[in-house]
Every structure is written in C-alpha cells, then in structure tokens.
C-alpha cells in the first residue's frame, strides 16, 4: 500500500502539464479558461494534436498505439487534462469500440479500424438503445438478416450521441430470435456515411444543443466481415463494453473541472463587500463535495488498479457510476447555486447579462441530468450491485 508519487511520476506530471500548456491552440485555450463549450471540430482538433504526440489513447496497449502508461501515469494524465480544462475526447471510438476490437476483433478488423480511431480520422457512435429497449437492452429488435456476404439491417436505434458527426456506428442487433433474448444478439460495425438505407435524425436535448439522434435502418447492407466476435454472442461483449463505459461516466476528472469552475464563479460573485468565496457556509458546501469527490476518486483508482493486473472492470464499476454521477450532478447544482440570478440565463444570453465563464453552465447542468440515466441508469446499477455483488435473493 503506497500512495506517494515517485520522483519519476512527479517529473511526468510536470512534463504533461507543460506540454498541454504549450500544445493547446489559442482559441481552445481561451475557451478552456472560460469554461466555454467546445465545438465538435475543436474536440477533433485537440484529438489530432494528442494523436501526433502519441497520447490520444492512454488506456491502449503499446502494440496498437497506446503510450504504454501504467495506472499512475494514466491517472496523472487524466488529472492534468482536467486541470487544464482541455476538451474531453469523444469516448465512443477510443474508450469503447476501440478496446472492444482490441480484445475481440480479428487481425483484419484491428488493422482496418484501430489506426483511424486512434488518429481521429474516423469518428464513432454507439447504437445500443432503442425506443423500447433502454434499461432492458437485451430486448432490442434491430434485425440483421443474412443475405450472401452481408447482413441486411432493419429497425431503429435512438439516443445515438454524436451520430450527426460520426463516420461509423457500432450496433447491437438481433441475428436470432431463438432462446433467451440475450442469446441472439450480434455486434456489428456499420459505415454510417456510405451505407444506403441508414438515416440519422438529430434532435435537440434539454441542453439546447443537438447532441443525439434517432438512427433508422431500412434494408441497410453491412458486410458480415464487420461482425466482431461470433454470431449471436454479442451480448457478452456488449456488457464488457458497458464496464468500460461506466468507469468513464463516473466522471471523476470532469467533476473536478466543475469544482474548479464553481470556485471561479464563487470568487467572481460579489456578496456584500467580499465574494461568495468568502462565505463560510458556501465554502462548506463546496468543501463537502470536494471531499466526497476524493472518496470517489480513490475508489476509481483502486478499481482501475485491480483491472490493471488482469481483472477487467467488473460489477464494481457500477459503484463508480453510481457514486461518481451523483457527486458530479451535485457539483453542477452547486455551480448553478453559485450563480444566483445568473443561473436563469442561457448560452444565448447577451454577454452584458451573463459573463462568458457562466454562459454554458445552465445548458450543461440540464444536459448532465442524463449522466444518472445513460450507460445503464443508476437504478439499474443498484440492481447489479445488489444481485451480482451482494448476491441478494430475487423477490
């Protein structure tokens, strides 16, 4: 048991910090300092800068282009990115389908897909949920019927985040209706831009941005060679991927960024002759959440460290998702409280009424109500914890 950083790790932190500071393009840096919302193009620009440095995929093994970092280095890197407010890269390629292909894909698939995920040349999105298959994911109905060398897809996915930008989508689809619902599911990779019969209809979120879409499939042909793993055995992989997703969604780094933003807002909000940051009661509210976030951060590290020595993030990742998202949301609520009347504003409010660092808070506060819903809702995480970890009996 040892939590201290070695001199090498301290030097590594310094290297990362200095590099990020010098590598962030001026406009992105300005936005980062003001807590503004990054456009998709800006996120991709940062992705490509990280790629050229070899740091786009901290969690990938070296042989497929990862930097070969250990847990401590990954942790430090994550902290430094959050500290600098650098754009968060889209998780669907690097954090989800990439690791899945690394684990289950064949050599051709690795060669075809991994380099472009890494470089950001191809953007990905996740086609799991359907209108009637949310929490009950295994009841999904998107049909994939074999025809020659292809599958023909018919049906609908929904809530597909980033589909409006994506080049590729990974989908769970039904290749058999025999047996339990979990048994007839396959994992396919579909070319979103160049497949006839796929239509993406973006819709507005409560954050006021068009962050997700309905994705429709009508006789859309996907080559069988784009199936990852054996036919009808996609469910195991789908679940493994959710394990990765849940640790990501825990949002430990992101909530740290929000804490910092909250402190900045409080320090720039006058109250009497001082600021809100001088108000003991408000400081106490910030401190409580900062301390609780440390508990989640440490739990995160322990779970990641366990995964490092060969144990995949198992059901324990549900704890991170549960506790992490609740702290995260509480911090966004605190940021709103810090703003006082300004919390009424919106990102299109004139700057005279709402200073730039506060412009996106309400939008993101609204959008982030989703983090206890997506990636398996928190109620579902509680079911997993009580059944799988605690072994409690069924009703």
């Amino acid at each position, binding site marked *: 048991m040892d939590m201290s950083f070695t001199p090498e790790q301290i030097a590594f932190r310094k290297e990362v910090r200095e590099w990020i500071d010098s590598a962030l393009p001026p406009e992105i840096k300005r936005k980062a300092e003001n807590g503004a919302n990054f456009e998709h193009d800006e996120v991709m620009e940062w992705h490509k800068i990280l790629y050229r440095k070899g740091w786009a995929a901290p969690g990938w093994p070296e042989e497929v282009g990862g930097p070969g970092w250990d847990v401590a280095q990954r942790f430090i890197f994550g902290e430094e990115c959050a500290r600098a407010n650098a754009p968060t890269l889209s998780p669907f390629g690097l954090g989800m389908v990439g690791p899945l292909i690394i684990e289950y894909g064949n050599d051709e698939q690795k060669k075809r897909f991994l380099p472009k995920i890494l470089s950001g040349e191809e953007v990905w999105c996740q086609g799991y*949920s359907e209108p*009637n298959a*949310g*929490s*009950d994911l295994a*009841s999904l109905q998107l049909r994939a019927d074999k025809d020659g060398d292809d599958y023909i897809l018919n049906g609908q996915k*929904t*809530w597909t985040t980033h589909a409006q930008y994506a080049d590729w989508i990974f989908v769970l689809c039904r290749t058999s209706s025999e047996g339990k619902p979990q048994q007839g599911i396959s994992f396919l990779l579909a070319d979103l831009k160049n497949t006839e019969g796929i239509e993406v209809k973006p*819709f*507005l*979120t*409560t*954050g*006021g941005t068009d962050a997700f879409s309905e994705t429709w499939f009508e006789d859309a042909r996907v080559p069988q060679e784009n199936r990852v793993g054996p036919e009808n055995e996609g469910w195991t992989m789908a679940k493994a991927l959710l394990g990765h997703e849940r640790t990501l969604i825990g949002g430990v780094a992101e909530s740290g960024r929000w804490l910092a933003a909250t402190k900045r807002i409080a320090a720039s*909000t*006058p*109250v*009497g*002759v001082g600021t*809100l940051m001088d108000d003991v*009661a*408000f400081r106490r509210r910030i401190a409580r959440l900062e301390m609780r976030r440390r508990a989640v951060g440490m739990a995160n590290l322990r779970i990641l460290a366990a995964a490092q020595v060969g144990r995949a993030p198992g059901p324990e990742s549900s704890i991170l998702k549960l506790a992490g998202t609740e702290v995260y949301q509480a911090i966004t609520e605190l940021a*709103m*409280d810090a*703003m*006082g*009347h*300004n*919390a*009424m*504003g*919106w990102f*299109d*409010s*004139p700057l*005279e*009424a*709402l200073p730039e660092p506060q412009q996106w808070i*309400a939008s993101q506060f*609204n*959008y982030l*109500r*989703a983090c*206890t*819903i*997506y990636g398996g*809702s*928190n*109620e579902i995480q*509680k*079911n997993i914890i009580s059944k799988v970890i605690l072994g409690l009996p069924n*009703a």
Partner: protein
Amino acid sequence: MNFDLSEEQQMIVDSVAKFVENDSPVERFRELRQSEQGWEPQMWAKMAEYGWLAVAYPEEQGGFGGSFVDLALILEQLGRGLVPEPYIPSVVLAGGLISKFGSSEQLERYLTPMIEGRSSLALAYAEKQSRYNLNDCLTRADKSTGGWTLKGQKVWVLNGHAADHLIVAARTSGEQFDSSGISLFIVDSDAPGLSRILVKGMDGQRSALINFDGVEVDADRLLGEENEGLAPLEWAIDRGAAAACAEGQGEISEMFERTVQYLKDRRQFKVPIGSFQALQHRAAEMFAEVELCKSTMILAAIQADNEDAGTRKAEISSAKLQLNDGGWFVQKYALQLFGGIAITDEEDIGLFFKRLRVLNGLFGDADYHVDRFQSLERFNGESI
C-alpha cells in the same frame, strides 16, 4: 381552522384550469418561447376579462377585494400550463406595490390600465452585485429641478423587456449597503436615457437588463416615502417568493402526476416500470414532498398578507425552502424516472424542470431563506 376553498375560490380554480386546458396548454408556451416577446397581449387582455388580474386588489381600486390566497390559487393553475404571461412581475410584484403604496393618481395611471389588461408592469430591483440582498443598491436617484435623475443598472428584470412601466429601486441617500435611503420610482419604459437589453432565460421566459443613463422623472413618480423604500421592497419580494411557491406548486404537481402516469405506461422487462419496487418507493417519496410543498405553500399564501413581518418572513422562508429542497427532489426524480426521453427538448417534463429551476433562484435561494429564518428574532425563542 379551515382548509377548504370557498365557493368563489373553487370557481376561480376551475375557470383557470379550464383556461389552461383550452387556451393555454403547454404547446402554446412552446411556440411562444421562440417569439421575441414571449407572451401575448391579447391573452393578457383575456385574463383581465376573466378578472384574474384584479382579484386581490381592493374594490375601491377596481379589484375584487380578494386575498393573496386567491392569487396563489390562480398561479398554481397557471403553472400547470407554463402560462408565460407576466402574472408575477406585473400583478404580484409591481401591481402589489402600487396598490399598497400608490397615491390615488398613481393608482389610476398605472394600476387601472394593468388591471384592465391594457398594459403590463415590472419591478427592477436586482443589480449585478446585489445577489439576494435588497439593501445592496448602487442605482442612484439624485434630486433635479423637476424631480429626480436616475443612474445605474438593473438586471434580470422579469418582464422588463415588455413592461410599459417599471418600478425602480434607487438610492436617494446613503451608501451601497445602507438600509435606509432607498426609494421606489415609477418609470416609463420608453423614457429617454432608459435602454433595455432583452434576455431570454433558461425557462423560455424573458427578462431585461436595463440601463438608466440619466433618466429624468417628475416628483410625482416617487412611490411611497422617500428613503423608506426597503421595507416595501422586502414586502414585495416576500410576496414574490410566496408567488413562486404557488406557481411552482402547479409545476411540481404536474411533473409528479405525469411521472406517475409514465410509470404506468412505460414498459421494460415486459412489465410496467411502475411495478418495480425501487420506483414505487421513489414515487411515494415524491408524493410526500408534493404534499409538504402544498402545505407550506398554503401557509405562506395565508401569511403573505400578515402585517406582522416576522410571521410573514418565517412562513414564506419555510415555504421557499420546501420548494427549493422538497420540490427539487420531485423535479430531479421526475426526470430520472422518465429516463432518456427526459433529456429531449420534445418532452414537456424538461420544460417544467427548467421553469422550476428558475423559480428556485428567484426571490432568495435555499441558503438565503435558511439564513433569514435563523436570523429572525423569534428563532432564539424555544419554538418559532
């Protein structure tokens, strides 16, 4: 003790509910939030025809001599439809102040046309630095030959973008934080030197940032006593808080009822999600909070007319805390139980959520009201 509605009150509730159903369902608000003004003068006139703008004012002022409870009942129903007409800023805040402190001439010039639905009003009190402290006032009114000259800025003036007349809190003596020295003025919104910047809010309603760059007003525009404006302002903002609880009650009830319906309709794992005990318990907890909100809301409405400021403050702060904490519980879990669809702009539940979050931050947040409650003199006694 009697918590029943009178026959007239029940009639008001029924008629506003019918109005919301027929004339102003949530879809109307959806369309209006895209428009510049955000609400419709002809609908305002209709509300005046029904008498809802007049209800709580004394008969000699052209009102029906009702109480704050009547206002609360109307607001609760309006909240259910997210009706965007400026009832709180115009009827409760500014109209309330003119009714209580205005001269007969002021009543005739500013209150009567509003009651008749021909104009609307706003109260300009908050400033960039003031947060919820009403005594923190930098806007100045300096004596001039014919009256006063106003200089300064007000922010988040609800309905400030559309109001015909504004009541403006300005300093006529003393320093930034002094309790005395604040006066209230009635200012025409098209007065030279006054400029307004329209601000669209998170909830789709409108307010304005207003600059007063040497605005001249005549001596007869002073509302109430010179230098003694703080107490009336506190009174008005307290009524604003009570009104927020009343409107919020409509939105909370609506969110709760829609959630219960959704638990019955939405199926996952081959059953209605409302059959999961975890969600049944959540709904039960939400129900308890809805009822606590309703209870404190009623108490606040009853005490809003109380001449004893201590009683008024204690009950209104308690109600606002309950709205901000208990109501928050309901609004937060309503979204959670709707799942992914709650995060789409198409689903109404998020509109109620946003409006409630705005009400949370108006007229004092939870911290403000807890602080105020514990600073009341009676708090040091055994029980309040």
